């Protein structure tokens, strides 16, 4: 069967190159050298709108490829630019990417990078970022894999109760991720463990080496299977545990229980911590639950986030009626259902759509909104964008509430810790529900006017 218009239409997910740029941004002293076309540079600057704390463009460079170079050979540009940028930026790690139209010329880009970087004081990796398949998660995972391969896992873990995460999606230095990582560190401490280096979490490149000290590596879903990383850390007596995201009250408790079990910690201590923390969350929620209970919500997110967010919203008493699963790399509908089954949850009684286009999101979510069957929509700025052109007369004075979650956020930025993971993430999200902006909050200035 031929492709449909929906297949050709723009989707909310990004390509590998954007994912690579996000991952490089998540390494404090990384440098991303782009052996790409001038327009491809824009694929790596979406972060400028998303991260207001650390501008991504300060650690990115371009080899200024143009038509003349394609004829004369473009790969000779890589060496001079690598040397020049290293002298300027003193990076801890350099990542080089190329794109399809350059690869079509048949030049050995990977070999040129290897030759140019011989004898260098810092590691240099070439990472695939072609734009014909995969998504941003694949790109992100390929950088995680490149960094993970450089960790000395063969050494015996010196801190058996230290836990490192691999595949944490760190897309900005703002308070949401600081909050998430703070939640995770606090939970681990409460059961007698500690949080070690997280791949990735905004640390310097060399700091990731200490992940080898950890006795347990928890693999989060953003290590895309397509990257073929495997479990190189599962050596020297180190344990490996694959988990879903610690989101929602029950989801967080499951995560903590699984980690405690993998570390061989006393179950009663873990359960005591869980009891105390669950109670500490439920109390404040009970004070205002009536304000959000019963809200009918649509969720647009990648599979792990959608699984976590649906469970969290359900715990809060909201009803999720439409789910749009983003991207190609994390299992789609089957992955969503499998994750819910792992959690012991029933199949979701809602419309679950794989890879909806922006056009379909506008049509289907717009139609639910117009019919009064939805009060709010949760998704990234890209997924919420199509709703901004819905006819206002159909949707009431202020329209539905919109909450930005995922990459990129245009309007939602966090100066303080606003986690969406852990027990604190449930309260923080309930707080966001209480103060959620509406589709038409007229009079707000554009948050980031530059392009």
């Amino acid at each position, binding site marked *: 069967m*031929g*492709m*449909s*218009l929906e*297949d*050709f*239409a*723009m989707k909310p997910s*990004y*390509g*590998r*190159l954007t994912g690579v740029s996000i991952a490089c941004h998540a390494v404090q002293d990384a440098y991303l050298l782009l052996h790409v*076309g*001038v*327009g*491809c540079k*824009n*694929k790596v*600057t*979406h972060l*400028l*709108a998303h991260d207001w704390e650390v*501008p991504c*463009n*300060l650690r990115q460079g371009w080899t*200024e490829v*143009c*038509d003349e170079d*394609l004829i004369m050979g473009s790969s*000779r540009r890589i060496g*001079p630019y690598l040397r*020049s940028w290293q*002298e*300027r*930026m003193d990076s801890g790690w350099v990542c080089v990417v190329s*794109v*399809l*139209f350059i690869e*079509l*010329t048949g030049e050995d880009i990977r070999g040129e990078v290897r030759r140019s970087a011989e004898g260098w004081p810092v590691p240099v990796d070439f990472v695939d970022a*072609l*734009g*014909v*398949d995969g998504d941003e998660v694949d790109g992100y995972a390929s950088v995680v894999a490149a960094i993970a391969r450089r960790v000395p896992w063969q050494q015996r873990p010196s801190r058996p109760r230290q836990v490192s995460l691999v595949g944490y999606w760190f897309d900005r230095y703002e308070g949401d991720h600081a909050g998430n990582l703070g939640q995770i560190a606090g939970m681990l401490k409460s059961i007698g463990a500690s949080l070690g280096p997280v791949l990735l979490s905004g640390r310097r490149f060399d700091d990731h080496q200490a992940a080898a000290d950890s006795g347990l590596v928890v693999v989060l879903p953003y290590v895309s299977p397509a990257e073929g990383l495997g479990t190189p850390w599962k050596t020297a007596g180190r344990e490996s545990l694959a988990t879903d995201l610690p989101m929602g009250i029950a989801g967080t408790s499951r995560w903590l229980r699984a980690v405690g079990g993998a570390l061989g910690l006393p179950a009663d201590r873990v359960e005591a911590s869980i009891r105390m923390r669950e109670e500490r969350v439920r109390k404040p929620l009970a004070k205002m639950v009536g304000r959000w209970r019963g809200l009918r919500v649509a969720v647009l997110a990648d599979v792990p986030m959608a699984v976590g967010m649906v469970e969290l919203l359900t715990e809060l008493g909201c009803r999720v009626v439409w789910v749009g699963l983003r991207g190609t790399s994390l299992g789609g509908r089957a992955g969503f259902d499998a994750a819910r089954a792992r959690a012991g949850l029933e199949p979701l009684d809602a419309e679950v759509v794989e890879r909806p286009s*922006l*056009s379909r999101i*506008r049509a289907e979510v717009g139609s639910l909104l117009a019919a009064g069957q939805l009060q709010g929509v949760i998704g*990234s*700025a*890209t997924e919420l*964008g*199509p709703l*901004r*052109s819905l006819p206002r007369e159909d949707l009431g004075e202020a329209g539905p509430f919109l909450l930005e979650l995922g990459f*990129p956020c*245009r309007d939602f930025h966090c100066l303080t810790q606003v986690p969406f993971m852990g027990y604190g993430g449930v309260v923080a999200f309930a707080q966001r529900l209480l103060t959620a902006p509406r589709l038409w909050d007229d009079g707000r200035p554009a948050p*980031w*006017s*530059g*392009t």
Partner: protein
Amino acid sequence: MSRLFPEVADARREAFWRQQERRRQTLGQPCCTQSNMSWSLIDMEGDFCVVIHGESDCLNCFFHHNGRRAVDYYSTRLSETQLVSGHTLEPLRHLLQLLATERRPAAVIVLGTCPVEVISDPFEPVVHEVSAATGVPMVALRTHGLTLMRLVECQDWLYATLAGLGEPPEQRHGVNLIGLPPGAASEEARQVLEAAGVTVNGLYPNQTRFDAWQRIHHATHSFVVDSSTVPRLTEALRSGGQQVHDVPVPIGLYQTGRYYGLVGDRLGCTEAVQAATAAVARAHDDAWLALKARLTGRVVALCIRMLKTHRTDLLAYEGLGPLELLRGLGMEVVVLVQGPPEARETFRARLEALGHADLRMEVFRGPWELGVVATDVGADAVVCSDVARKVVEEAGLPMISSSAWRPFYAGIPHNLELLAGLADTWA
């Protein structure tokens, strides 16, 4: 400069960098024409679709989280195999036919990309063929990022294309105001001219719906902010019988006065225009003089060639639009050009050609060193792209975004407020 660019001396030893120096450099930001056209159209209202003929990731080389039209963007999603084997036209034909039968827009714009350009994909005949067969107007543009076209050239190409979609009018009437900043302040020009008895046919390009471009030929005159940046559009308007006149970027008292003066003069209604602006033109004198007393002698770095934008008002006159506003308030302006230091003389020659041989100029290579360069030239404040906000703030300098200025007399209070904010930080 040696402290700022310590590696230049070493780099010059390499034949590679010597060759780089020979590359022609212009003041404007280079762009990918596909990326820039897609970006320009993403928030335009109207019943049209954009097809990007290439790999799917070419849909991501512009910010589509901000645009209302992203729902009407499509990609042929070519695979590596299709590109290598040359089987690229069938997916395009199939997509265009689907659009014509299922979506049926008023127009389809098909944009090329680097991969299809590398294989010299002959896609234009397919577009024309499907358009003829279905009756849906379709236009094919060989856009890509290989030739490093300047942003303004690309905008010109797009506008000339959009203007070309319109039918010639039976009668002409009114004037076009082209190249004005977006926002309510530009509406002042419409009100002033209509008070002077002049009908405004349209404000282009920034406040315009897609279908408004089809009416652009209906005017008798077009007033264009820096027509040198839009030669194709200018030629299209002239060849259609319009008179085209250059006007300045109307930011600040002096430039706004010149703008209205030129329009009145060319239309033979100077007195009427003067009468229509008399009250508003004097309304800001006191505030202007008071602020001038606070700003005189201060040094401001005006950064150009760093702004990635599709707003022609920001690209006009190489981005020097606010120059006269700043100088009119007594400030010394140092122009900071983003680009390779080895192109310094080219940049200098371009400034001289624009009539600004007297301006101090320095080159900086990218946002990361803007703070150092601005400090070195003695700047008290910086006008630059938002992408450098953090760097400038870390250097302890107040900044104003390049895109923050508002036009005409209506914009003066806002502009003065911005500049007063600088003075407040020094106090």
